[in-house]
């Protein structure tokens, strides 16, 4: 009787009323698929990477190890290949992130002011967002090639001697930087544009009323007000630059012409995907990477909280 009444007058429905069984069933229905995926492919492998990194003489095939210890870390951190990989990666970050930021700031400010040709400019600047780097890397290889390469054609036409861009250590590194910058520019410009649009236009109106020059407005208003966004983008880009692997592989099919472009991820990749898998080393190297990225992420969180972005 009472139940029936409730049905007829559902206006008294209270969502907290019947917690118990129905809510458990709902949790399973709504969160089950998601949590299954997260547990199996994120949480378990995360914990397992830590465990593996402390297993001495770990063999994945037989699933055996001789004991727990820091052997893998000792080996990895003393491995000249890993250390040079770390250096190459840091150098890549230190070169590509600031240059792409500087270029992006200029382009974003100009794009923000531009009233005409918006569609055509956006198309040119932002198309690399969707196109696979595997395809564009081939174009870069062709443009910088010795035979029939556009850049070398221009150089020789100007009377200079041809440069072996893809076959020498020095130049292959520079081509990688150019490719990296070209790839990251669109993303960087878009985030900076979003930051620019958050600046109150009153600042500009006031500055112009005071007769400020364009360049002074840029250095005294735009850049300081944009600096929280700049800092955030720098961190986000650094994180992605630390994970560089695809570009190197796609440009050279190996870690550079003289094995000069070994990166941290390349090391991890070769230690577990190669012919002689050494999972312990790969795990230890991946945890070094994890801590580098964790530091940057915490920095980002602090900044984001401060600026309320």
């Amino acid at each position, binding site marked *: 009787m009472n139940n029936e009444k409730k049905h007829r007058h559902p206006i008294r429905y209270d969502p907290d009323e019947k917690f118990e069984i129905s809510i458990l069933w709902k949790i399973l229905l709504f969160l089950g698929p998601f949590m299954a995926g997260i547990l199996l492919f994120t949480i378990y492998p995360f914990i397992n990477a830590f465990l593996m990194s402390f297993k001495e003489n770990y063999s994945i095939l037989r699933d055996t190890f001789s004991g727990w210890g820091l052997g893998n870390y000792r080996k990895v951190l003393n491995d000249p290949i890993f250390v040079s990989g770390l250096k190459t990666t840091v150098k890549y970050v230190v070169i590509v992130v600031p240059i792409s930021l500087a270029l992006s700031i200029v382009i974003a400010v100009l794009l923000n002011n531009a009233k005409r040709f918006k569609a055509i400019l956006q198309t040119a600047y932002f198309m690399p967002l969707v196109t696979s780097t595997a395809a564009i890397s081939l174009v870069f290889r062709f443009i910088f090639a010795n035979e*029939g390469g556009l850049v070398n054609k221009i150089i020789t036409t100007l009377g200079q001697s041809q440069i072996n861009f893809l076959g020498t250590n020095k130049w292959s590194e520079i081509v990688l930087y150019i490719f990296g910058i070209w790839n990251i520019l669109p993303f960087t410009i878009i985030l900076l544009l979003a930051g620019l649009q958050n600046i109150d236009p009153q600042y500009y109106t006031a500055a112009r009323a005071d007769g400020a020059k364009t360049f002074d407005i840029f250095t005294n208003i735009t850049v300081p007000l944009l600096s929280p966004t700049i800092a955030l983008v720098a961190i*986000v880009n650094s994180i992605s630059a630390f994970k560089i692997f695809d570009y190197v592989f796609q440009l050279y099919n190996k870690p550079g012409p003289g094995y000069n472009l070994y990166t941290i991820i390349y090391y991890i990749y070769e230690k577990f995907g190669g012919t002689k898998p050494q999972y312990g080393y790969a795990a230890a190297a991946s945890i070094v990477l994890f801590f580098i990225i964790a530091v940057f992420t915490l920095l*980002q969180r602090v900044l984001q909280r401060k600026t309320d972005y």
Partner: protein
Amino acid sequence: MKNTSDKLKDFFQYLTLFTGAAIMFLPFFWMINSSFKTEKELLSFQSFFPKELLFDNFRQAWEMGDFLKYFGNSVFVTVVCVALTMFVTILAAYGFSKLRFPGRDLIFTVLVSMMMIPYEMLMLTNYETIRHLHLFGKIWSLIVPFTSSIFYTYILRNFFLSVPDSLYQSARIDGASDWQYLWEVMVPMAKPSLVTIALLDAITCWNSFMWTMLMSSGNRNIRTLPFGLTAFTSEAGVHYNLWMAGATIVVIPMIILFLFCRKSIITGVSRGGLKG
């Protein structure tokens, strides 16, 4: 009326912008331009533009590279992966925003902090997990590990949280279940967020490289376009005309997508850009 110095400023502004745009666009232009040239024409630089529009490169690349298969795989992986991810994400975002149970927000905070884990760290174990699940060398190995995304759930949950609970109460009064309320009320309202998520996920799936390379080492039949193209270049040898034709085949679908959804892609990237 603009004075001369303003006009000059405008001129230099657009000059800089178009120079930059030309540099950004150059690889695309050079790729398409070269894909119509013969190899001889390419290497000799006789003319800037192709003498005639040769489709022979495309035919050769298409036949040598097995691109039809790679293309089919790419479409399958992208469509299935995006569909499954959306489904899982919608359910999870609802669960973490509208269901009430103890510890809900704490669990979600812990999950959000896990977004900083680089995928390369998880890859070691996932590689083995895929083997244990007997998925190695099968196309599902490119999909299964990626259907639960904390980041997309985070975006969608933020939107769901902004929907007032009074709407929920009135839907319940009308006799709707949670399931109906989610699909008939919340999902239609969340369309902008869902478009963002779908586009970001589609771009990621379509361009996924390293994992595809690892998974397809046992079976070339599951290669998708990006790694298929890289493999094609080592199998076909150095013939830039064929490379450029192959690259054009891979890039054109994405360019078409971009031309149609430029605005949503740009807003999507700017909203989704600062993950971490």
